[in-house]
């Protein structure tokens, strides 16, 4: 899909990965273009989170390559990847619950060049609620506020690639809509986003491209309109068996 001249923001090439003897991902090829939102959909246990773990360096693939802006970063530690601009918000817990809001923001400054003052200005400017609660423990915030705090990392760290794992989990629909609007805005500002979602409908609206993962393989890939009908079928494992 990608034109050969443009380097992909993030690319997985022939990735096989798993935990111990259990293989989860089989021969994954996925390209995140330099702009836009790619949504990764799939049923429970399809391997979505594992794919994000591989992309963020938390799980080392048993074979295959991970490329960040064309550079092979396979096997790099997550902290090194984070320092060079890969921002990954893990599933359901993108904040440190026993640290105060301002301590959390302090943690967003580990990427070289990111200053504490700028982080606080941006975060508190975008989410005034966080400014009111800066001395509170992050774990005491509401789910929506926690997710705002987590997303403030994506806003302030000026990442080259943003990986989001099920940010809508357990949140009220209003908050989810707000979050996805924010994701869209971040993408429009030029940061490529890889979004993992279990609930297809919301993700299909915000995404530019959709990949559907099932049983550790990418079964479908294309524009939201192209794959919309195939998504449900893939969720039910009906494809290919007939």
């Amino acid at each position, binding site marked *: 899909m990608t034109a050969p001249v443009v380097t992909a923001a993030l690319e997985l090439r022939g990735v096989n990965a798993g935990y111990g003897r259990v293989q989860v991902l089989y021969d994954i090829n996925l390209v995140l273009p330099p702009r836009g939102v790619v949504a990764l959909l799939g049923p429970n246990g399809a391997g979505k989170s594992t794919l994000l773990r591989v992309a963020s360096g*938390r799980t080392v693939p048993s074979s295959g390559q991970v490329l960040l802006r064309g550079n092979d970063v396979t096997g790099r530690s997550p902290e090194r990847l984070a320092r060079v601009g890969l921002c990954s918000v893990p599933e359901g817990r993108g904040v440190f619950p026993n640290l105060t809001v301002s301590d959390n923001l*302090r943690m967003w400054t580990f990427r070289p060049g990111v200053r504490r003052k700028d982080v606080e200005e941006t975060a508190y400017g975008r989410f005034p609620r966080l400014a009111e609660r800066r001395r509170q423990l992050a774990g005491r915030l509401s789910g929506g506020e926690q997710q705002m705090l987590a997303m403030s990392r994506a806003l302030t760290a000026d990442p080259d690639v943003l990986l989001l794992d099920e940010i809508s989990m357990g949140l009220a629909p209003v908050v989810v809509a707000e979050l996805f609007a924010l994701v869209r805005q971040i993408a429009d500002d030029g940061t490529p986003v890889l979004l993992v979602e279990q609930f297809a409908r919301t993700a299909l609206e915000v995404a530019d491209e959709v990949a559907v993962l099932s049983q550790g393989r990418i079964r479908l890939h294309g524009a939201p309109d192209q794959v919309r009908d195939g998504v449900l079928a893939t969720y039910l494992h009906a494809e290919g068996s007939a």
Partner: protein
Amino acid sequence: MDTFLALTVTGLVTGCLYALTASGLVVTYTTSGIFNFAHGAIGMLAAFSYWELTASQGMPGLPALLLTVLVISPLVGAVIERLLVRRLGTASLEVTLTVTVGLLLLLIGIANTIWDPATPHRVQAFFLGDEVTVAGVVLTAHQLVIVATATAVAISLWAFLHWSRTGVALRAVVDDRELAALTGASPTRVGQLGWALGAGLAGLAGVLLASQVSLDATTMTLLVVNGYAAAVLGRLTNLPLTFVGGLLLGLCQAWAVGYLTLDFISQIQPVIPMLFLFVALVLSPQARLRVAQTAPLRAPSVPGARRTLLATGSFLVVAALAAVAMPLSRMGDATHGMAVALILLSLVPLVGYGGMVSLSQLTFAGIGAVALAKVGGGPEGLLAAIAVPAAVGLLVALPTMRLRGLHLALATLAFGYAMDDAFFSNATVMTDSLGLPVPRPLGLDDPRGYFFLVCGAFAVCAFGVLALRRSTLGRRLVALGDSPAGCSTLGMRVRRTKLGVFAMSAGMAGLGGALLGGQQGAVGSADFGLLLSLTLLLLAVVWGVRTVSGVLIAALLLEAAPLLQDHISGVGSVVPLLVGLGAIGLGKHQNGIVGSVVAATRRRRAVPNLPQPRTEPPIREEVLTSAQS
């Protein structure tokens, strides 16, 4: 009023030392999740290094202090983190505990090798001779230094953790290790920093303490056990509370010494930190039940009833043959070995099956021996030797049952430490300075007959332990080790099961101790020392505490070590070193040597039968379609 002030001041000074040690412990525990039982040993090492620099090399006090506290100790901590802690990862409590206890023994062994324990090492106090009078209380300058240092450390530690980015990262790693990595903070480097910091604090406390006590590797290492109580009051994570705990403990001790009658005090004083710890345990909030072990481990296979019966029978035949054929001169050692094996066997249901760790099993053995001595050699004496330690075990374990396994280990350690001083060295208990005479149970004075009795007791207990493992209770125990939360959702009475097994194990150890005492004819304080308890536990774990054969081999080898020493000089001092090293190597072979060997032979036999590795994911479509039709 003056006495009160004076007592308060000395209490505060001691409390400052406790607070320093305990805070170091908390820093390492929170950053790496591993409770460092070798914390005191690091402080001890620092104290000896300080002695080496000042008394031996003639360096002045201040640079030596700075070098020890800022360079040597943190380096030791960082190296330990790099070589040991990092490999442990998410190992079970039983493994992390044995590795750090192994480290403790190793460091004591190293210190005793470098600095001959026979020659006294003295360290001068800071500003020796200088005194200050505050509100009518005379303070030595050294005491002032202690208070000033502790205050400075408390403040700067707090400021570091809250104001610097690295400090925030330290707390962040405690909170969510993975997320910390995703923000770009390196959890491994932070963990290393935590260990360096903790070791530095241990070193500081060690050096400050060095001039106050006689410099002895074991004493100094175990002194820290007192500090554990302060850390537990701070729930092992809260630094300010830990500091308060240290000060309170120091005060309690000082007031107790001053106000309780003198005669009584000499006996009760060592028990105060233990009482303090138990109060802190009772005050601790209920721990969350663990859901499941992170690293599943294949347990050794359990022999069936027929194999157990066969093995027990053949063991008894061999024992009978040995009882007849063995030369009388070796009989004592062999009996001793079998009694130790029985004590080690008591660890199998507790540590091996239940995943609970007792660090003072020999203390229970000692109580058994004393009970036998007091009641007499008849059957009622044997019964007391089982029942009394079991009852005491219940009391020790009771306050920790709401909490995690680590707290049980801490409680047993404090108990063993207190009993060392207050009970086994107590003139009213032991009556005779040469030790308390223990009769041979059932009047079996013939050494061959007695040997067979001990073997028989071991065989019966081993049979019972294996039968227990096959029973429902045994499965419950193993399930408890796997997932306490799962067990309690199934309606199992988690605490009752744990308490019962702990009491049973203590009773078995008591029987072993009584038989041991009968063999020796008398027991003294040296027989049931805490350090020996730790060595035995490690030996059992290294050889395989999940298997009966593992602990039997461990006990027999322990007995053989002194025999070896007759032939090769110097083996005796090497044994603790080897045990320490072995325990440290445990990270990989968690079923012990016997378990690993058995597994290896099994695997070789089983290789041809292994299914071919799947290249395709398991197909679920069939299941789906068949369910639909």
